């Protein structure tokens, strides 16, 4: 597949010389998520983050491939594993670090923490499945108000155990909500492999409600992007809800230190399904090294800045 060389808005100043092409933009997007998440995991033992975290390492191509093509009015609802979606949507890395560190400058002023983010039209919540009817209602509101916006909601394979998901699929189909259901099947829910928790067909869960579904087993952003483009196009043409089942791989633990998979299995996944490694050879090596250096600098800068930020004042809280 040839790569279009469209310039990403606001990204040209990152590199000397020629403007960033799409391959480079995708690479940067995935690399930002990767290094951010690795920084979170590395630094968690220092006790600087509150609560827990659910990292997106291994799934970066999904967020970047889908969300890089949204328009400003579009709406995104994410789940507990939301950092990658948030960064790919365009959320501030500094504000995300600060939120995880419970600082006043965090995305939600430290109230929400890792799983509860809202910025512009991006939302996340930590209750499995419960976000799906909310996202459906958002899509319906955009439809009734004729804004032309598409809504994207992210589910995981584990979420398929929650009944409210099917209530939402039913209503989305009945009322032709302009929504894209993205099922990121990383084949493991916390520690439970999919064969112990999900019976029957993944795609059949959508087609049973007459929601068109495309299935893709890929960690390649270059393959995910056009499929998402097709589905978003259907939604924008008023053809109702669509679904994308993405078979993907989570390299990290569910949260931290709770991975029960064999290390050989994980090494195998990292060798064959790493979205960053798959995509990297498409870039000019020098440009890639420059992006790597810039991302490292960006993440380190955001981290250091957030760490120096103040905590919210409980006295202010009491007054609200």
């Amino acid at each position, binding site marked *: 597949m040839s790569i279009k060389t469209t310039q990403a808005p606001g990204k040209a100043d990152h590199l000397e010389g020629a403007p960033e092409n799409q391959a480079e933009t995708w690479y940067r997007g995935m690399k930002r998520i990767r290094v951010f998440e690795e920084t979170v995991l590395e630094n968690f033992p220092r006790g600087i983050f509150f609560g827990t975290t659910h990292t997106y390492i291994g799934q970066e191509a999904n967020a970047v491939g889908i969300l890089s093509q949204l328009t400003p009015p579009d709406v995104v609802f994410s789940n507990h594993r939301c950092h990658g979606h948030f960064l790919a949507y365009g959320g501030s890395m500094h504000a995300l670090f600060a939120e995880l560190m419970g600082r006043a400058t965090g995305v939600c002023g430290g109230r929400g923490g890792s799983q*509860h983010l809202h910025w512009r039209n991006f939302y996340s919540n930590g*209750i499995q499945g419960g976000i799906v*009817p*909310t996202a*459906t209602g*958002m899509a319906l*509101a955009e439809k009734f*108000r004729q804004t032309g916006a598409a809504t994207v909601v992210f589910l995981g394979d584990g979420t398929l155990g929650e009944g409210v998901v099917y209530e939402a699929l039913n*209503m989305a189909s009945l009322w032709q909500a302009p929504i894209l259901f993205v099922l990121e099947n990383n084949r493991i829910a916390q520690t439970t492999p999919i064969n112990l928790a999900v019976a029957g067909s993944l795609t059949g869960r959508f087609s049973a409600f007459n929601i068109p579904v495309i299935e893709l087993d890929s960690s390649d952003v270059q393959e995910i992007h056009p499929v998402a483009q097709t589905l978003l196009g259907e939604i924008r043409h008023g053809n109702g809800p669509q679904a994308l089942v993405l078979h993907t791989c989570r390299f990290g633990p569910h949260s931290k230190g709770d991975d029960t998979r064999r290390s050989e299995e994980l090494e195998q996944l990292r060798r064959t399904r790493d979205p960053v490694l798959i995509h990297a050879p498409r870039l000019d090596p020098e440009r890639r090294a420059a992006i790597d250096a810039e991302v490292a600098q960006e993440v380190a800068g955001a981290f250091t800045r957030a760490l120096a930020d103040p905590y919210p004042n409980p006295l202010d809280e009491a007054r609200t």
Partner: protein
Amino acid sequence: MTTVLASLNQALHRCLAENDLVFLLGEDVLDPYGGAFKVSRGLSSQYPGRVLTTPISEAGIVGVAAGMALRGMRPVVEIMFGDFLTLAADQIINHLAKYRWMYNEQVRVPVIIRTPMGGRRGYGPTHSQTLEKHFLGAPGLQVLAPTTAGNPGALLSSAILDAEDPTLFIENKLQYLEPVLDGENRGEFEIQELGETFSYRLTVNGAPPAVLTLAAYGYMADLARKAMLSLAYEDEIFTELVIPTRLAPLEISPILDSARKTGQLLVIEEGALTLGWGAEVLARLAETDRLHLRNCRRLAGKDTPIPASGPLEDATLPGVTDIQDTVRKMLQP
């Protein structure tokens, strides 16, 4: 004479007429049926496209309404029986009531969830309950209950058109047929609206100062005022009744002020006794400095499921006679 049912139905008509962003979602709400208790009658004919009959998916429709509200609309959800609120409990507690606060005040979630509670119709254990106590402690959630002493429709329409927070609007199956006590229907009662507290004080016309305060909301307040009249005429026991219409956040001052005056308080609710609204009211009073009540009691539903059989159900839920008996006992020297 306007019934509570008509007052609420007219309010819904008004809200849909006034604001295009008001939508109604619920099971079996389309005409000619107009909802199981007819509160939504006529709406789908007048506002087609904005009244959505839904699948039997209480959690789903409350969640859909949350999404609509987050994106600028003002949805109203009808839950056919209050008992079914438990199906939507996750949506209410972990989603609707959380968003505004956990997103650091960046959003508002003006969803109104209307639902009828209450027994005395023989519907049995799963269609007769008064379950709002389970939602009263959820931060971020407003809980309203209309009273015949006020204006049920105005309470509903102000919530639909102006509320910033998700609101449970607790109706009652038997209260629907009660007349609203406006001008000509007030009969022997004097009704005072207590400022900004969402509360009302009821006394019997021309009665001497009250010796005991009754506190009740919703249909229980209608039963309480019937007991008040009998107590006044048969026993010459004069009471005053405080009726809050906003249960959460709780504004204790109207009950506190009355109890301070009378020195005795009976809190009455239809829901099961333990850890209910009355428990919180009495706890607040117990924590009030220099308030020395001579006597305070709760009267509530029994801590058992609600039976279908009439005589058994009557014995489970507090009625007019129970209120009278309890007051008489409290006043025995």
